[in-house]
């Protein structure tokens, strides 16, 4: 049974833990919540990505905000406490387009789609095994992860709470 108190993973945050842990990523719109888990060492981590990549010439204020530098940093922090990157299991959700009403929303706004592509690319590069994803669409998502039982759940306004995958499955 999950016992750990859930850590709130805010915009641009990276959290890692060894052993029992729980994470909440609240209200992901165009942002993406990514959880990684190494079943052998029980090291887990989560990141709340906001933008696809860092901007040339702009200082990086917070590594976890950007998929291109944030995802490798999450893996670095996890390997620092014992995880092995080739064993990592991944699940992620978000990258929606919550502004669904109005003229030409599809063409005007695409941060969510770009975030999804950027995170997918990083995951591929790192060679993690992707268990499940829930991206795109028009719904804001809240992702709850309980390492104790391995459940990754996604909650939306329209569809309620559903199990995305089990990290221990």
């Amino acid at each position: 049974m999950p016992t750990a108190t859930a850590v709130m993973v805010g915009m641009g945050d990276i959290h890692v833990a060894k052993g029992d842990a729980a994470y909440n990523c609240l209200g992901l719109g165009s942002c993406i919540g990514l959880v990684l888990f190494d079943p052998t060492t029980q090291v887990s981590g989560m990141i709340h990505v906001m933008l696809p990549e860092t901007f040339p010439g702009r200082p990086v204020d917070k590594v976890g905000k950007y998929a291109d530098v944030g995802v490798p940093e999450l893996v670095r922090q996890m390997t620092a406490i014992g995880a092995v990157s080739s064993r990592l299991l991944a699940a992620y959700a978000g990258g929606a387009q919550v502004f669904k009403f109005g003229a030409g929303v599809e063409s005007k706004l695409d941060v969510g789609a770009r975030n999804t592509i950027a995170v997918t690319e990083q995951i591929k590069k790192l060679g993690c095994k992707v268990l499940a994803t829930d991206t795109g669409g028009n719904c804001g998502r809240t992702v709850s992860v309980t390492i104790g039982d391995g459940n990754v759940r996604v909650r939306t306004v329209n569809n309620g709470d559903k199990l995305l995958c089990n990290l221990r499955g």
Partner: protein
Amino acid sequence: MTGDNTQYGLLEMSAVREMANIGLGHATTALSNLTGRSFNMEIPKVETVCIEKVPDMVGNPEDVCVGIMMPIEGDVTGHIAFVFPWDSAQSIWRSLLGTCPETVGDIDELAASAMLEIGNILNSSFMNALSNMTDLKIHATPPVVSVDICYAVTTSVVAEAELNEVVALAIETRIFDMEDVETRGYFLCIPTVDGLDLMLRRLGVAEAA
């Protein structure tokens, strides 16, 4: 941008507040004309905040809200957005349409276009006021509307703003309905650094070093 607004001094911040006050005064008048209700015309509370704190200000992150966003174009660029809590949005719908969607799933084309229109009117009156004050070309582009959990809406606004430009700060204000205190709204103005500096120069406020 992270950190406090150290690049702007007290003088600059009070000019920003004054601009927001005047712009929002015009916007609330427009809202009153549209809905036939009187909104608080007193100087609204204006807070200039670090962009990353925006999602935390508007309310309970998992409450449903209605967000109307539009990019600003012209001499000054950036993003503006109005965010209404669900119950306030319902009360606005009732005064405009005589009825309102009971749940998020009930929002039809009429309800959505009513909110788009609210956005058009609020934002264009705000932009016109700013434009007149600074003698700069500032126009609002067609709005987009979202109905979702508060945190998802506001983080998406912030991501959109940061994706395109270096943003200066977010100006948050609250609007209250005089007859019905439950109707309230939050206004976010997120200008770019260049845009804000230009406006400040036009107002005769020296640019921060």
